[in-house]
């Protein structure tokens, strides 16, 4: 238990730093799609919910888990969809302008 906690904290710390360094470089131009993308990635919580439903340990856990999978899946699908729709709209003027 103790070492798992420490492992987890190490991972959290490293991922936090990576996130910080990577996201700092993202131009304000793309902050809206960034937020919808991280939202979709965050919905990876769906994996925890899937296991909860599938293990079927109690009626309560199955019901709550099913609702959780629905909520997270809608974020996965909706999040990626709208991020891609937004990014498709960003076009450069370089080729056409005189």
């Amino acid at each position, binding site marked *: 238990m103790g070492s798992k906690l420490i492992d987890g904290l190490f991972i959290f710390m490293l991922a936090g730093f990576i996130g910080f360094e990577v996201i700092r470089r993202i131009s304000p131009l793309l902050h809206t799609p960034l937020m919808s993308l991280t939202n979709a990635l965050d919905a990876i919580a769906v994996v925890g919910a899937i296991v909860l439903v599938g293990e079927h340990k109690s009626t309560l856990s199955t019901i709550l888990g099913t609702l959780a999978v629905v909520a997270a899946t809608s974020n996965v699908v*909706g999040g990626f969809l709208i991020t891609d729709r937004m990014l498709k709209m960003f076009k450069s003027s370089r080729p056409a302008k005189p």
Partner: protein
Amino acid sequence: MNTLPVTQNVIEVIYLIASVLFILSLKWMSSPTTARHGVWAGELGMVLAIGGTLLHRGIVDYKWIAIALVLGTVIGIPLGMVQMTAVPQRTALSHAFGAFCVTLVGTAEFYLRTPNVPRFMMSVLSIEVILGSLTFTGSLMAAGKLQELLPQRPLTYKGQNFANLALLAVGVAIAVYLVLHPEAKNFFPAMLGIGLLAGVLMIIPIGGADMPTVISLLNSYAGLSAAAMGFVLDSKLLIIAGALDGSSGFILSVIMSKAMNRSFANVVFGAFGQVQAAAAAGTEAKTARSATAEEAAAILSAANKVIIVPGYGMAVAQAQHKVRELYDALTKRGVDVRFAIHPVAGRMPGHMNVLLAEADIPYDRLLDMEEINSDFPQTDVALVIGANDVTNPAARSDASSPIYGMPILDVDKARTVMVIKRGMSPGFAGIDNPLYYLDRTLMLFGDAKNFVGSIVRELGGGGGH
């Protein structure tokens, strides 16, 4: 452990690959040219992770998983197809969904594990549930305000901050008690309830102009609650995704707070609108000059350099496509047209960029405040469409102004300033804008969409062929 360790290892490797793809996904977001690859990497990582999870040997029943995945997809597709003007409320809603998922899983885990919950486990479980429930109701409230289902004006009362802090303190106290006595089942719903209530109370005093900061903050909370869930489930993938989302939301909140010259605490506890209503009093009669669309078109077509400053009012009036026509008409006449985007223009970070990109304005014409501010003195016309406080020179000069110190776009330094506005009433925050009374300022009164439309018509009639 001994039945199928191979499958378990395979799943872990798949999660590792998914983590790499998630990090690459964010890395590719740094430039508009690679950003779509980022989406694909994220999608691939997600499909792999979900596929790998389905191999989990503990899963005995797939029926409800399948139903939930289908149902989630059915709900997700319309949420991915909303109009670009509705993106802020959609984002708030998806923060609510994410937090809802985390809260439900945390609740289920508690009832599965009690009464034997190790202290560390109970600590992270409490963090997960409090942050998750608070983000859930907070985001629903934010979405309601953005969709204008709830009043947008901040609601404040005496002792509000104290009440909110006291409530949170009680929540934390219950969490501590649960860590020490995880068998005290009845305390769990109380903790959950306090989290849900705190989310509502936290958003009540927040006004529309503070939404960019608050949405970023909620984004950060959603990420942190997911990371806490990763600790509970011992899922490294979830810890990584949560930490990435948490730091992203945190960075955006810092950028937004800086752009308003305010601290986090000030946004959450400040109730901006209230202060200003008082400060707006005591303005003597000043005169502003107004102009017609014809005059505006004449000035614009004689200019060499034009900077357009869009604000939330442009989104409300749905004027972005007319603005694009104006951009085209002026560009055809050889006028250099660029857009100046304040970080907090609109209702979420980057909101204006998305609306203008949707209207087919090339992204290299959209510049953020730091890039473009030094160009205003060499600019012939600054055209303000639906923006107010972010152009208010009082922020630079008037120490008594509630927005004093906030970085603004130096619109007043342009040779001519034109402001499209419905009337002389003060903006959302209720602060008078001295920009409107400058000699070089022309007020163009009317609806943004119609007015820009009539300027375009004037430009077309004046012989652009």
